[in-house]
C-alpha cells in the first residue's frame, strides 16, 4: 500500500518482500523476492561471508529492478 502510494506520487520505488503474490495483488509494480519472512535480506544459515554476499546481490537486484521497464506488478529476478 505504501509502495503504491509512493509511486502514485511520482517517486520511483521497488518493493523487497517475501510474499510476492500479496505485493502483486495490492499492486506494487517492481518487486524483488527476499529470502524469508523473518530474514528478508539473506539466509541466516550460511556463513557470515556468504550472508554479506547475499545482501549485496539482493540489493543489486533491487537497483536493477528500479531500472527495469514494467507494465504492471512484476517480480524481477
Amino acid at each position, binding site marked *: 500500500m505504501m509502495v503504491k502510494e509512493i509511486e502514485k506520487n511520482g517517486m520511483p520505488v521497488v518493493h523487497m518482500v517475501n510474499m510476492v*503474490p500479496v505485493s502483486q495483488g495490492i499492486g506494487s509494480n517492481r518487486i524483488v523476492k527476499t529470502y524469508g519472512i523473518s530474514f528478508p535480506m539473506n539466509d541466516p544459515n550460511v556463513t557470515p561471508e556468504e550472508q554479506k554476499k547475499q545482501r549485496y546481490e*539482493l540489493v543489486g537486484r533491487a537497483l536493477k529492478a528500479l531500472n527495469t521497464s514494467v507494465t504492471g506488478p512484476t517480480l524481477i529476478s
Partner: protein
Amino acid sequence: MKKIVVFVNQYFGQIGGEEMADIVPELREGLVGPANAMQALLKDAQITHTIICGDNYMASNTTAALDTIRGFLEGIPFDLLIAGPAFNAGRYGFSCGEVCKLVQEVFQRPAVTSMCETNPGVDLYRKNAYVVAGSASAAGMRKDMPKVMALVNKLLAGEELLGAEAEGYFPRGIRKEVPYEGGKNAADRAVDMLLAKLAGLPYVSEYKVEQEERVEPLPPIDVAGKRVAFMTTSGLVPIGNPDRIPSGSCTHYGKYFIGEQDELKSGEWISIHGGYNVSFAAENPMLLMPLDALRQHQKDGHFSYLYPYVYSLAGNQTAKGDAIRMADEILAEFRKDGIDAVIVGST
C-alpha cells in the same frame, strides 16, 4: 454422512507459535483445534482429518506445500474443506486461500474459509473460495463460527445460496441474473437514479463496482549518480524502542539516523513487529536493513547518496488510510532531500 477436511496453521493446530511457523504440512486423523467447534455445528457431516501447515512454510515454499497437501487429499474421500478462520493474519489468510483454491480448482469441491475484511487474502482469494466475512482476531471465533458453519451446511445440503451479502461471504464476482421484483424496469430505475444524482438527492447503487486501484508504473530509472533512500515495514527500531512503535496497526513510524555508518550492529537494534519471529533480526539487524550492502553499492558507484535516516514501522495490519498518510509524509521528507528513488523493505 458427508466428510469434511479442516486446514489450520501451526498455532491453531496447537503445535506452537512463531517458532513453529516453518513446519511442513502434516495430516492428522480426527479433529484438532477449531475443528472441534466446527464439528459441533455440522449437520449430517463428520470432520475426518485436520491438515496443519506452518504459515512461513506455505509462504516460502508454496508449490511444495500445496503438492504435499494435494497428496494428502488424494488419499482421503472428502466432500468439502474448511480452512482457518484466518481473522486478520496476512500469512494465514494467504495459506488458507491457497489451500481453498487448490480444493476448488483441482478437486472441484467447495472450500470455505473466513477472514477479516482487511486481510489481504480476501481480495486475493474471494473468487477462488467462499471467504466468509470474519472478525479481526481470534477473540471473534465464537461469533464467526456459526456464520461459517451455516454456509458449510447449506453447501453440503446442496441448498441454493442467496448471494454473497445474504450468506455473509465476500462477493466472488459471479453474476446471477434475477428478475427484479417491484415493477420498474432497469432503464426506468437507471434514469431515476441519474435524476436523483443530478439533483444531489440520495440514491443507492444497486451494484457496487469494486475496482482494484492500479498505479501506472513509472519509467525505469538508472540510479547511478542519483540519491536513494531505504525505508522498512519490518519493525526495525533502536534497542529500547524509544518512539514506542507498536507491534501492529501502526499510526506512526520512527526515523533513525544511520548517517555515514556502513553497518547495523547486533545489540543496537531489534524488531518490534508482532507478525513474525524477530529473533533472527535481533542477532543481525542487517536482515531488515542491509546497510553494509547499500554502502558497498554506493562505494561501487551504483548510486551517489543514501538518505541518512531509515524510516521504520511495523507493517502488521496497518489500516489503509494510515498507510497512505504515512507514505505521503515520508515521501515529503524524501523530496526535501532530493531523493530520486526509494527502496521499501518488507517482511
